[in-house]
């Protein structure tokens, strides 16, 4: 049963990953990317890592990919324009792709997995402990420094992005307390208008 699901998720994931680059419409590409994410989460769950699977969906699909989709929808990408230069750069692209592929094959092909190497992988999880608890216990004790550093890097990246995009233009801002403090006396002036005289 699990094997069948493994092949189902993997097949859909590979197919949708292919469609990400093959789809003509960029919005369709992003939607296929999301499908690939969801199937990756399914694979995580099959592997027994239900916490990682759920976090993948919450963070990547629920938040990051939404913003992706947002941006791609707003950009009006003209694919005919982009495809025009395609044939000119095709040879260079093919060469680079071939080099990377050969390197990958050389590196990964020479890998050998030690027979005793896979044993410790299943060991550290204590019985009677859920996935989430086990992750939390390791992450906040043994790897606390790395966890905090990763957070710091993210914070720096965020501040950097804000600084880069912040322009000190004159921006009209609403002052909410001021708005709330407005009363009729300060805002409305009632005038008695004489007939046929105007204000």
């Amino acid at each position: 049963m699990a094997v069948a699901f493994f092949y189902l998720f993997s097949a859909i994931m590979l197919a949708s990953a292919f469609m990400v680059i093959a789809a003509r419409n960029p919005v369709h590409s992003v939607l296929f990317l999301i499908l690939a994410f969801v199937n990756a989460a399914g694979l995580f769950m099959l592997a027994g890592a239900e916490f990682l699977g759920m976090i993948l969906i919450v963070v990547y699909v629920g938040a990051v990919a939404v913003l992706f989709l947002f941006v791609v929808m707003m950009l009006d990408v003209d694919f005919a324009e982009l495809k025009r230069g395609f044939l000119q750069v095709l040879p260079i692209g093919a060469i680079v792709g071939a080099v990377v592929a050969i390197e990958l094959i050389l590196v990964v092909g020479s890998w050998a997995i030690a027979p005793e190497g896979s044993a410790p992988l299943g060991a550290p999880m204590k019985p009677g402990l859920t996935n989430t608890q086990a992750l939390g216990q390791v992450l906040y004790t043994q790897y606390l420094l790395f966890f905090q550093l990763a957070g710091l890097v993210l914070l720096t990246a965020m501040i950097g992005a804000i600084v880069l995009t912040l322009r000190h233009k004159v921006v009209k801002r609403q002052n909410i307390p001021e708005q709330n403090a407005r009363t009729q006396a300060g805002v409305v002036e009632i005038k008695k208008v004489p007939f046929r005289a105007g204000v």
Partner: protein
Amino acid sequence: MQMLNSIGEWLGPALPAVMAALKSLVLLVAVLLSTAVLIYGERKVWAAVMLRRGPNVVGPWGVLQAFADFLKFILKEPIIPDGANKGVFLLAPYIGVVLAFMAWAVIPVNNGWVVANINVGVLYIFAVSSLGVYSIIMAGWASNSKYPFLSALRAAAQMVSYEVSIGFVIVTVLLCAGSLNLTEIVEAQNTKYGILGWYGVRLFPMFVIFFVSALAETNRPPFDLAEAESELVAGYAVEYSASLYLLQFLTELVAILTMSSLMAVLFLGGWLSPFPWIPVIGAPSVFWFLLKGWSVVFMFSLVKLIVPRYRYDQLMRLGWKVFLPISLVAVIIVAFVVKLAGA
């Protein structure tokens, strides 16, 4: 009984899958019936507040109104706009309705009455509800029309914003319960103090924030900016008609039911009785779950009548500048209290 046993033997290893399918079917029918009750009940509540009669023509006291609406949607002709991106246009409502029903798989209605009693139940619901935004974005984009697209942008920003505070509020509950399993969260509220042991009482401010965020998450008034009829006609649903619109309508209603029952489970003690020391009333049962869930739905209905719609910038301000800091500080405080009390 003998027949059941022989059927069990005949199915053999496929039995759990068949049982899960049967449970899902029962749950599906129950949720669909609840949406019918919700359509009728909400309109009656609104009518009562506005001193009108509400639906009273179809069937006795108009109780068959929901089914008449259903038939109307089914029998109409679905119209697909010429400029629409057809695949995505047709897919969007289906994704929405599937996700809306998916969340129900982990909601425990009574002790043990749940389709999938998984360890990460809360995260599952959170993940599924965060996917719901795709249905709206896809519908808005595929319609290839201005109002739906504007609505989709609004809905996306709104749902992503309020998910953040919902997430932190859920974290406070998890810290108290010490589990992500919804059944265990309900059991953690089972104390000898009855109603005082519920997280809705112990974490009352969080309950309020969750309720308001749930209104925003389900696009309900006063946060129904995505379908503000005075600005966007009907928002992302403008180009949809007949059975496709029915699916969108169903998605919204089921989302309300999901959020209400989630609140009943997380904050109001699920199937637990508020007064466990009284003999008959004190017994935990599905009745309490239904009572609590429908009370929250009732509050959802009333909010629509008594609060005017927010302006979009006010909505964003409330989400990012009020709810997010409050819930973030609350997480820290609750974590400290749990640590000190537990040690």
